[in-house]
């Protein structure tokens, strides 16, 4: 636990003080990570969000139509996606694809002495390896979340349009009416917190690896499990905060 907080401290130190010490993180490394964490996750995030949009609309329609409130399906889809499911599901996808990859990659580098070699070349591994991943994750998870929200709405629209015979204009109007700007911001605030948790837990697990391939496997499992737990707990806490304040 202490190591985890130290890692957070070191990341912030290099992020803010690196440029002052004439050792800023490499822009090319940040872009490389932006692509790996963000751009390459687009198809997966899209498919997940689309399925969830469909599901939400179908489940919602089933219940709401019984009460004669079928018109409110877009409201339901918009609010649940923006506030809750968008950030959460995209975070889960990113844990599975990028969190695990970061841990496995850093763990392998640790095992093959690459991280020690960086240290011996007087290249700080936190600055060189961790900060670019941290920045990329903090930028890309919210971006993916917004993207996921949009695709999820398309999923909802698909059901409303084709199964409930709602016209597109009505869907859009109702969705916009239901969703407050605050909902979008609360969802984005969540995704920033999730991004922080995912990338720090993944890096910490990777840097701690000892003892070969088995160690890398264990660390990857830990990284994924702890990230999931952490974001679900954080989600509950944040939702409570937004709910009561």
């Amino acid at each position, binding site marked *: 636990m202490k190591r985890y907080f130290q890692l957070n401290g070191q990341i912030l130190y290099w992020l803010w003080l690196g440029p002052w010490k004439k050792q800023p993180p490499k822009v090319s490394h940040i872009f490389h990570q932006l692509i790996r964490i963000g751009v390459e996750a687009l198809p997966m995030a899209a498919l997940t969000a689309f399925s969830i949009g469909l599901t939400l609309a179908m489940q919602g329609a089933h219940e709401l139509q019984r009460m004669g409130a079928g018109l409110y399906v877009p409201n339901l889809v918009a609010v649940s996606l923006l506030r809750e499911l968008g950030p959460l599901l995209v975070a889960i996808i990113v844990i599975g694809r990028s969190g695990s990859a970061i841990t496995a*990659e850093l763990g*392998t*580098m640790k095992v*093959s*002495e*690459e991280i*020690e*070699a*960086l*240290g*011996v*070349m*007087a*290249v*700080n591994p936190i600055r060189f390896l961790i900060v670019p991943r941290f920045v990329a994750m903090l930028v890309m998870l919210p971006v993916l979340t917004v993207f996921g929200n949009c695709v999820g709405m398309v999923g909802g629209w698909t059901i409303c349009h084709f199964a409930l015979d709602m016209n597109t204009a009505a869907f859009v109007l109702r969705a916009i009416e239901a969703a407050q700007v605050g909902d979008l911001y609360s969802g984005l605030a969540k995704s920033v917190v999730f991004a922080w948790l995912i990338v720090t837990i993944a890096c910490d697990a990777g840097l701690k690896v000892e003892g070969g391939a088995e160690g890398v496997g264990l660390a990857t499992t830990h990284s994924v499990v702890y990230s999931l737990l952490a974001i679900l707990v954080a989600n509950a806490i944040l939702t409570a905060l937004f709910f009561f304040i």
Partner: protein
Amino acid sequence: MTPSPPSTHLPTVNTEADPIIEVRGVVKKFGQRTVLNGVSFRVFRGETLVIMGGSGCGKSTLLRHLIGSLKPDAGSIRIFGEEITDLSESEMDRIRRRFGMLFQSGALLQSLTVGENVALPIQEHSRVDDAIVELMIKMKLELVGLTGFEDLKPAEISGGMKKRVALARALALDPELLFSDEPTSGLDPVMTAVVDKLTQDLTRKLGMTAVVVTHDMTSAFRIGTRLIMLGTGPHQGKIIAEGAPEEIKNHPDPMLQQFIKGEADGPIPLRLSKGDYLKRLLGETTG
């Protein structure tokens, strides 16, 4: 400047100069196991010190102390006249910029190409423009006979080639001091000779200092201006012999002779507990 302490038993090449490395009474324990037990030696400018010893004698551990990856439990290590055992990481980095290290496995960054690996220390520690970096990469790769491999990934080249790339990387900033962990293991005889010749040229012509850990006796006697041997078993973690190549070759210690000649059985027994092997084997079953 610190005055060099009077030397009594160390054969020194040039006593007037301050030593580049001075190790005194270094002790390191991992749990119950004492890996280094009072190791002391000095290395002077332009020397090539070869550290020999059987597997598990603490050669690599000793090297890890010299590069500041491990801290000793007791004793002092001075590099370029500075005590490194109580330096902070950022102060240690200042020292690290002055030496190169060749890891046993090479430890190249797998995500970068060969050229980028060699360029890494140059780009991190100096401000030169890309054209010059490019040129420096070419020069360093030429030194180790790997011109034209810049764009391959480490996974696409052989183990021996990786090692040579790692050597090029260690030499990228023209260090004053080079540490090598098994520089020639995995190389063919010709490449071993090339790497040895390179080390010799750099130390004799350019005054670089080298500390080499090796098992390869031919190469040890070829490049070493002074050799030390770390003991195993009862002598674990102690220097059991030190001297110029000729002195070591004619050393009376039978254990050292066995090691140099590469004999399977001798003072270093085939089984560490030869005598009570039967007893242990049968004792547990028959009581």
